[in-house]
């Protein structure tokens, strides 16, 4: 084979060769950041704030899926919180029917939402942008209507599991023994969130992530590379649905039951705004965006301020996020990368 590499040095002055962050460094950074934030929360927060931060981590999981769809494929999905509701419904249904171990209940919620997410994602094979956003928003609305009519299972008879004519009591979903207290459950949810972030990162850095990157760049390029467009888009929707479903199941574990009004389409819109605000292209963006989407309403409630003010905040945040596509997480990641490069440069010198 002819080797001519030595003759093909680039002629145009190249920017500094900043390499991609090594996987070990990335994993360490994720564990350290999530670990530090979670430790501070677990050590300092009371019941109200622990509950809110547990919900915030569920938001982080859901938002990770939303960011995956938007960041990797440019698809705007406004039904992710409804998919969390689907996951919650499935996990409650499975719990009341079979009483499996808690982890299996979460898995069932994730898989149920994953399947529904994939079906809901079918329009994405033909749609993009505003049209896809509208279709997914309508699906979120349809889910809320359905769940308001049928409600979440509470251990009653039949498929819907409602408290019926037999007058049976509502049965709450029990938390796992090892995470019975609020603090322990928060730590448990933090660990699941960490695993969710790893799952997304693993996808972004390997074969599916590269296929998604080609699809986002140009579908013709992806086809010319042998990428199965339909398969990889469906995979992305399934993964995003799985994360949302796990979040819904964790919420069911937090409260023991779920309220039909908690999965409004507006919350799915807030999730998307949180995705833009935090930054859709980094795990830190999903983490910060998820925490903010729950922290702001909780703060308003704590200060006895009308929670509708939260919509004004998120509206303003959306305007700011549109000005800077990197988002808060992206900016911080960039800053960290620059500092890391500078540190390595000094160390080498």
């Amino acid at each position, binding site marked *: *084979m*002819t*080797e*001519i*590499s*030595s*003759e*093909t*040095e*680039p*002629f*145009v*002055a*190249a*920017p*500094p*060769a*900043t*390499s*991609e962050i090594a996987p070990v460094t990335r994993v360490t950074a994720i564990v350290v950041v999530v670990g530090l934030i979670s430790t501070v929360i677990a050590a300092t927060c009371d019941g109200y704030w622990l509950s809110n931060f547990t919900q915030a981590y569920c938001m982080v999981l859901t938002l990770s899926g939303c960011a995956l769809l938007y960041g990797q494929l440019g698809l705007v999905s406004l039904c992710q919180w409804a998919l969390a509701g689907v996951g919650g419904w499935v996990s409650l249904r499975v719990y009341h029917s079979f009483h499996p171990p808690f982890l299996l209940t979460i898995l069932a919620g994730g898989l149920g939402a994953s399947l529904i997410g994939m079906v809901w994602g079918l329009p994405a094979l033909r749609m993009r942008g505003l049209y896809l956003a509208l279709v997914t928003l309508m699906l979120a609305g349809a889910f809320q209507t359905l769940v308001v009519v049928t409600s979440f299972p509470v251990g009653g008879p039949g498929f819907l599991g409602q408290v019926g004519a037999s007058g049976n009591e509502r049965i709450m979903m029990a938390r796992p023994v090892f995470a019975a207290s609020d603090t322990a459950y928060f730590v448990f949810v933090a660990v699941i969130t960490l695993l969710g972030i790893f799952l997304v990162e693993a996808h972004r850095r390997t*074969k599916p992530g*590269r*296929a998604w*990157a*080609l699809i*986002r*760049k*140009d579908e*013709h*390029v992806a*086809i*010319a*590379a*042998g*990428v*199965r467009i339909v398969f990889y888009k469906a995979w992305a929707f399934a993964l995003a649905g799985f994360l949302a479903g796990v979040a819904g199941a964790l919420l069911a574990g937090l409260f023991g039951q779920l309220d039909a009004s908690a999965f409004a389409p507006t919350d799915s819109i807030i999730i998307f705004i949180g995705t833009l605000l935090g930054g859709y*292209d980094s795990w830190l963006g999903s983490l910060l965006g998820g925490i903010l989407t729950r922290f702001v309403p909780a703060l308003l409630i704590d200060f006895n301020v009308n929670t509708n003010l939260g919509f004004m905040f998120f509206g303003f945040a959306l305007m700011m996020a549109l000005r800077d596509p990197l988002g808060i997480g992206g900016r911080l990641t960039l800053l960290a990368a620059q500092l890391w490069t500078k540190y390595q440069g000094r160390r080498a010198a």
Partner: protein
Amino acid sequence: MISIDALTVRFGGIRALDALDAELAAPICGLIGPNGAGKTTLVNVLSGFVRPYAGGIALNGIALSGLSPRRRVALGLRRTFQQELVVDELTAADNVRAIADHVSANRQSGRREVAVAVDFVGLGARRNVLGRQLNLYERRMVEIAKTLIGRPKLILMDEPGAGLNEPETDRLRRLLAAIPEAFDTQLVLIDHDADLIASVCVDTLVLDFGKRLAIGPTRAVLDDPVVRRAYLGRE
């Protein structure tokens, strides 16, 4: 070898390709013609993005008509596009690996092929640099490296030299000339740069208004008065 038989492509009332007949057997073939001559349409028909109205096309005796673009990729057909389409968020090597994921026999051979292709185009030292940090020449090299993965049988390059300066075009020329022997493949080159075509291509097909204007050894074709008048604008 590419065999084109009475190939016709229509876009509404326009015949982008009009009963085109040609055989391209040389290791490096040029495809030239004025704007709108049907060059990119022919590449799109070969890669399966455009379905012909009539006629057929075959690669090494295998009829391509009816095969999906993915099936053609599996047969060893590779292409680049007019504009470079390197993914900014992936490293140079990962941009190439994105192809290997889908066309290489297995992960080991994929890794090996990526290393060979990246070194071949001279990006060995820049393999872990993100796409957005590569300059235009390097981005063009990534595009070429992508076509060298998975035992290609035919590589279609649509204006690989666009935007490059003279020294870079010289390097590109040497690189293109080495590809058929190094990778046991056929290369079809579309470019407006007649010098690049003349120095690299053994045979050249000239299109004009979707029809064959000339075909044969590149030097003879470029010296043909009809070609000079239609394409170069002088005799």
